[in-house]
């Protein structure tokens, strides 16, 4: 991967927890079926409106709560290309990377609005807001993690090494 991710923003607030992303009542369903209910507690239209490559932008503590990998899996299934938040809950952060989803920390997510077009340089740690013509600093993804994300996550990596 060239380390650049671009897409349209879907904007949410603070503390988007795993019970919101994957409501427990639907977890017995397959990922494609469960994905229909992703985020439904706060945004019933989410699954219908998210498009391939869209970037979720949120406030603090994204992904708090459960270790359930169904959360990043359903987001990935729906086409989410990257997630930007002020910071992430620990297990979600690792899960996302293991599944090959770029997760980026940025202090300025309040300046980004729903519908903005943004471009993230993962290696340099820069977000360009094309709609607003602004630029924000964000966390950099180190080369070896970028390589893991580029491979598509931990499984392809393990296939090569185990």
């Amino acid at each position, binding site marked *: 991967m060239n380390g650049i991710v671009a897409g349209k923003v879907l904007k949410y607030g603070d503390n988007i927890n795993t019970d*919101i992303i994957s409501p427990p009542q639907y977890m017995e369903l397959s990922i494609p079926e469960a994905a229909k209910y992703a985020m439904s507690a706060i945004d019933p239209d989410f699954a219908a409106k998210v498009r391939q490559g869209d970037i979720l932008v949120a406030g603090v503590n994204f992904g708090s709560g459960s270790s359930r990998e169904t959360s990043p899996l359903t987001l990935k299934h729906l086409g989410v290309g990257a997630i930007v938040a002020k910071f992430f809950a*620990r297990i979600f952060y690792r899960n996302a990377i293991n*599944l090959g989803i770029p997760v980026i920390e940025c202090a300025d997510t309040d300046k980004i609005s729903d519908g903005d077009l943004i471009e993230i340089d993962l290696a340099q740690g820069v977000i360009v807001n094309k709609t607003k013509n602004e630029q924000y600093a964000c966390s950099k993804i180190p080369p070896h993690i970028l390589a893991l994300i580029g491979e598509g996550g931990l499984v392809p990596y393990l296939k090569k090494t185990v």
Partner: protein
Amino acid sequence: MGKTMSEKILARAAGVSGASAGDILWVNVDRAMMDDILGPRVEIAAKMLEIKDEVWDKDKVVVISDHYTPPASIKQAEIVKFTRDWAAAHGIENYHEFVGPCHQIMAEYGHVRPGTVVLGTDSHTCMGGALGAFASGVGSTEMLGILVTGKTWLRVPETIKVTWRGKLPPGVMAKDMSLKTIGIIGHAGATYKTVEYVGDTIEALSIDERLAITNMAVEMGAKAGLMAPDAKAVEFLAARGITGGYELIVSDADASYCATHDFRADALGPVVACPHEVDNVAPVGDVKGTAVHQAYIGSCTGGRYSDLEAAAAVLKGRKVKKGVRLLVSPASQDIWQRASASGLLATLAAAGAVILAPTCGVCVGLHSGLLADGEVCISATNRNFIGRMGSKNAKIYLGSPLTVAASAITGKITDPREFVREVGA
């Protein structure tokens, strides 16, 4: 400079002579735990077929069916069957089902030992820290890596020291200490860090009570919640036939902490976490009178023997308010049997409680008692997120088993001290 428990345990697991917060280590995992909801069926079974369909060490892998037991639908039954068959096909002898929430089973069956590294596909794996293990939750894909290699990388966390001093007043429980701590540190205040609980209050608590505190470390974002293993931990393990093969690793007196918080147990009253965040903590008096429809005592947080005992002391000779349902799920089959033999379950049932199987069902809204639109639940569990126990238009308050019992009697959120002057004294 001395070392924290986290630094020492992770250094041991990585086979290095010393480690400091911030180091990234490849650690050997002592126990890898999977439950039914997030275990083999999510990414693991299918992907292992593509890599290497064999676990690195059968004796170190534990599989527990607890969330979907007893199954409430054919889909749930299929998941439990899949989990059971997967464990059998991979030669996993440590397979437990229908016996209670995984974290309680991990502790009771001796899988959690002081000084070891325990990782599980469930965020409340951190509960094992009450026995002095570095225990933490991981996702399914990470577990897959552990299953085939026996290792994972961990960043050695900084440690926040939480000190509790003084004696808990009557009517106030370890659960109140847990909620109070989370209210102050905040639901993300310990993200990526260890929370280490120390002080004479902690030392005076039973293992049952300590588990109710470390269980909720992840509700502050923590990677682990640790307590120094002591004679009580040794005794707890000995009672389960584990008499050696572990090391009592404790923090050095001059270890360095990134933050410290001091609390007084003797000044603490009952508290509740209000909807929809666990750190939305208030004295029970602030919300007293809020009508409740369901009261729940159970889970890996609030269903241990001492919890049932506390609830029974309040409910004995009293009745659950008409229109309120009190559900009780002992946290394990062993607790269920002990509470049955001692008459606790009969006391609770006589007051009107519905006694359920040992299960996760109610806690995470999968079966056995979901909430409808507009309903309010007071619960002895660990999470009150929107939609967790059923409808997204329901409200969950978290409190101690005593607060839940008192509220079940009056039908509204109630300070248990109205009923107990002597319990807990």
